[in-house]
């Protein structure tokens, strides 16, 4: 497999689908959707192959591809995966594939929609497989534009208009990336001085980071924390998340909550922490505090919601609080938990949003007081909803329990009482998740919804794909953790080495 550029192929498959779609007449909606499905399926199949043929015992970077690109800046087309990026890549593909089917009923300009969707998926994947900072940023910026267009054209207005939502989402992403860019460029300039020449590859930059003074690391990390933190909806930079998801079309909510948000967490681990261990050490307690604040605050806010998408929006803020808490606990178990929880939350949030999307499509409302008793009329939809809700409240046997448990172990060990407040979030989560489920699915069925058709055919794909992932990850957590651990251990070893040296300097 050494010769075949499998990662590039994974990246290019949706792009190829997008290119093909441009040549299909706009009337051929079905064909367009099929092409999109095939493109994302190829990516998903290949990433599954990569996931299961990755040698976790060996660890490190595998499936690497490196082609020098811009010599003066030390940029190269450097793609590689390790135990941290591979779960994210797989997650992107699972969700991307499901998202195509979740938007199977899009009839308004389907061609443009699916082209943008494919580009969006590619952009997100790119950030995860890039092992070169420049490529990472490039893909990161690629992501922003389709999101904006998708939201303002195909979105829906409720509490806020879709234009407001799209604007908020995009501007937040851009503000975050602006700070990030400053941090990254400053770091790059300093690293070029240390390395004696520009080199954008993660490995080289991490080496350079070793020799950076604690002061530099601290302020650089602060910039990155702000950038990645607002992307991962760290409290108090979270308010784009509920509004954005509420405004966005189903597929975008799925991808955004499912994976795009995870770029923030991924970046914090794989870039900020990896490059700037001393800075991370300094900021870790603050991250933990913000994480706990996010968990509790967003869980309470979710409890007060009546719009399904807002509930999930706040819930994802709350779950990302756990990720922040995990990173803040600054040990290898925490990093394991953070990455695994991002995967778990991705699957769960995507299933949630796809289900809500279908409910909205069929009943034309997301307003909980207008819903009720759907379990009778649309049982399969109810199963999907309950699966997602139960995963959200961390039910054992579904994917999110073990990651949360891991995070709790890591955080409880380090922060004690603070962690307890965070862990108390599981009660609130159960409250709002079950309340939403109960009021939407159970209770007396409403006559106006008697004619509703349950999900079937292509609409089942998100439930099947994501539901399988939910259950498989819950019953066999080692599928996920062997992989994550093989990435987290070398990372934290590096970090601890730097901390030792840093102590001397």
């Amino acid at each position, binding site marked *: 497999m050494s010769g075949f550029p499998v990662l590039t192929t994974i990246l290019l498959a949706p792009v190829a689908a997008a290119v093909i779609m441009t040549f299909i007449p706009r009337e051929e909606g079905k064909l367009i959707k099929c092409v999109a499905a095939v493109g994302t399926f190829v990516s998903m199949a290949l990433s599954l192959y990569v996931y299961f043929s990755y040698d976790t015992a060996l660890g490190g970077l595998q499936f690497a591809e490196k082609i020098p690109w811009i010599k003066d800046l030390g940029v190269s087309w450097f793609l590689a995966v390790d135990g941290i990026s591979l779960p994210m890549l797989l997650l992107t593909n699972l969700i991307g594939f499901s998202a195509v089917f979740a938007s199977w009923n899009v009839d308004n300009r389907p061609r443009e929609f699916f082209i943008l969707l494919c580009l969006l998926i590619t952009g997100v994947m790119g950030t995860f497989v890039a092992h070169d900072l420049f490529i990472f940023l490039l893909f990161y910026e690629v992501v922003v534009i389709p999101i904006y267009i998708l939201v303002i054209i195909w979105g829906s207005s409720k509490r806020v208009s879709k234009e407001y939502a799209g604007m908020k989402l995009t501007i937040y992403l851009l503000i975050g990336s602006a700070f990030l860019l400053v941090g990254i460029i400053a770091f790059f300039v300093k690293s070029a001085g240390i390395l004696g020449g520009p080199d954008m590859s993660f490995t080289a930059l991490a080496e350079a980071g070793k020799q950076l003074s604690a002061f530099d690391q601290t302020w650089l990390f602060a910039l990155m924390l702000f950038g990645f933190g607002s992307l991962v909806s760290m409290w108090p930079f979270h308010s784009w998340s509920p509004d954005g998801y509420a405004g966005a079309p189903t597929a975008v909510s799925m991808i955004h909550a499912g994976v795009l948000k995870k770029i923030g967490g991924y970046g914090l681990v794989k870039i900020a922490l990896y490059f700037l261990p001393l800075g991370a050490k300094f900021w870790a307690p603050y991250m933990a505090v913000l994480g706990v604040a996010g968990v509790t605050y967003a869980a309470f806010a979710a409890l007060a919601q009546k719009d399904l998408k807002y509930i999930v929006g706040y819930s994802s803020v709350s779950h990302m609080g756990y990720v922040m808490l995990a990173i803040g606990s600054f040990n290898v178990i925490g990093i394991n938990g953070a990455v695994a929880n991002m995967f778990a939350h991705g699957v769960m949030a995507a299933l949630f949003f796809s289900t809500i999307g279908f409910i909205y499509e069929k009943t034309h409302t997301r307003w909980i007081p207008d819903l009720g008793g759907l379990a009778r009329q649309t049982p399969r939809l109810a199963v999907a909803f309950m699966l997602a809700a139960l995963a959200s409240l961390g039910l054992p046997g579904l994917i999110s329990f073990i990651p949360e448990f891991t995070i709790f172990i890591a955080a409880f060990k380090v922060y004690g009482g603070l962690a307890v407040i965070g862990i108390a979030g599981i*009660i609130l989560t159960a409250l709002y998740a079950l*309340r939403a489920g109960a009021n939407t699915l159970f209770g007396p069925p409403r006559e106006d919804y008697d004619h509703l058709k349950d999900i079937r055919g292509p609409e089942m794909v998100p439930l099947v794909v994501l539901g399988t992932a939910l259950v498989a990850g819950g019953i066999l957590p080692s599928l996920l953790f062997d992989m994550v651990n093989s990435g987290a251990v070398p990372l934290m070893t590096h970090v601890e080495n730097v901390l030792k040296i840093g102590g001397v300097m």
Partner: protein
Amino acid sequence: MVEFAMHNAWLVPLLPALSFVIIVFLTKPWKRLSALVCVAGMVLSCVIATLAAYGVFTNHEFTEKPLVYAVRWFSMAGLNIDVGVQLDPVSAMMMFMVTLVGSLIFIYATGYMEGDPGYSVFFSYLSLFAASMLLLVISSNLLQMFVAWELVGLCSYLLIGFYSHKISAREAAKKAFITCRVADFGLLLGLLSLQIVFGTLNLTELAEKISNFGQYTSMGILTLITVLVFLGPIGKSGQFPLHVWLPDAMEGPTPVSALIHAATMVVAGVYLVGRTMFLFTEVPSAMELVAVTGGFTALFAASIAITQREIKRILAYSTVSQIGYMMLALGLGSLTASMFHLWTHAFFKALMFLCAGSVLHALHHKADVWEMGGLIKKMPITGWTFVVGGLAIAGIPPFAGFWSKDEILLAAFDTGHYVLFTMAALTAFMTAFYMWRMIFLALFGDEKPENHPHESPWNMTLPLIGLAVLSAVGGLVGTPWAPFWQEWIFFGHPHHAEPNYLIMIGSVVLAAAGIYLAYTLYCADKTKARAHALKERYKFFWTLSYNKYYIDEIYLWFNHTFIDGAARLFYLFDIYVVDGIIVNGIAAITRLSGEGLRVTQTGRLQNYALVFFLGVLAVAVVLAFTGPSVAAGLTGGVK
């Protein structure tokens, strides 16, 4: 065969799980087939469990050293979690009991659920429930136990909310899950602490490490951990103050009530404490807490049960009370007595729930005991088995309840907890009274003309008879004269209490007194005038008891005021402060500064040219009259 069963005990939970999968994915459209798959899975698993239990109970080495099979579930640097099977007399007994009672209940359910649109779904839930419960029973690891614990909670959520179109069922299910969740929060914290402090959650390893915990931690921390762990059982086993969900759980179909209340779920808490006795016995204060909680709950729940009218609610409070007994026994350090009561209680309480179900089935779900009467003539099998259950729970020898209750009273007396002993004795009296109040009102007395009861079909009465037999003789395994039970199920070393005839006779007298009182008030007195007079006389206490001491209302109020209040507060804060002031504020500042700067954009060419030349002048002046270094600095070092 026995060997095979013992080494493959993992099949016991797996078979019902398999039934669940088969029903969900394959046989759902065919009701009979689904029921068959479910029952077959359970019965098969019962066979294996019986064989395995036989293997355990014929070899004394397992009392000292449990048979453990474990595999790594997941691992990472610094955290390894196993899953496995741990067979010792306690788990073997439990496994046997759960599968046996479970099988009978499942058979019963095939009749009870007849005609329900969710027939197949119901049996899939039952299978999942059984699988989870059995997983809990055989767990060799506390995290695995917690997983099963939560899954059991999920199944009870699904089963209680089975008639989900009814608002009350939906709310009861939610209440059950969330109340347990609050408790599980404590349990989870306890488990986390155990993992962090001792580095393992495997029961056998923990037992070893905790026996000399001084190496790892201090007494204070260990006490805290123990109390946290105990929070879980408080919720799941419906102990005060988290008992509120249990009576509401009656919204589910009756087999569910039987399954949840009698055989399985609610005793999971007792079982967990039993499994972690090595932890509790190290912390005397925690033991006291367990004992007091149990004793108080027993009395407290009994005092509520006395005034309730709905048949299943009376049974529910009686369950709470009986589990209080078990906790009390555990707190006194007598694993033997506790497990013994768990064992007998499973039979007679399952029996009584199923009888109640049979009655409800016949009366089309009319639940108020005051509206029943004389049913025993129309429904002889149900009626007489009900009476057997009543005798067993009241503690009339030689029925099962007598022996186990006696064991608990004895334990309380022997350890010198006289207050608790008195509470337990009082509870025994009250239990006999309210149980027989229910029986007299429902089964005896005058028939009500508006009711048209009929005996239930064979697949419902057969389990009743089976359970009645078990309730009658189940206690004989542990009589003071043939202490088979006491030799197998114990913590530390077997405990042989000398039979205390005083207590024995005293408890029988109390029970008989209770039954007699109920008889005089509710059976002999056709007009029930004295009962009403009593009620009027102690109106205050009656109201308090009838309204369950208003605890539900208090919780509801607390929830509405504080939790929802906080939720609204946070949400408003989010909308008006985080979003309103900060986020939109920044946006507004941007927009306002734009508005301000817009004035400079006159749109007139000559204005622009003027400014342009001013700029040129400024740059030229800077470049011309400052040294080259400043200019270079301003232009970014361009040479």
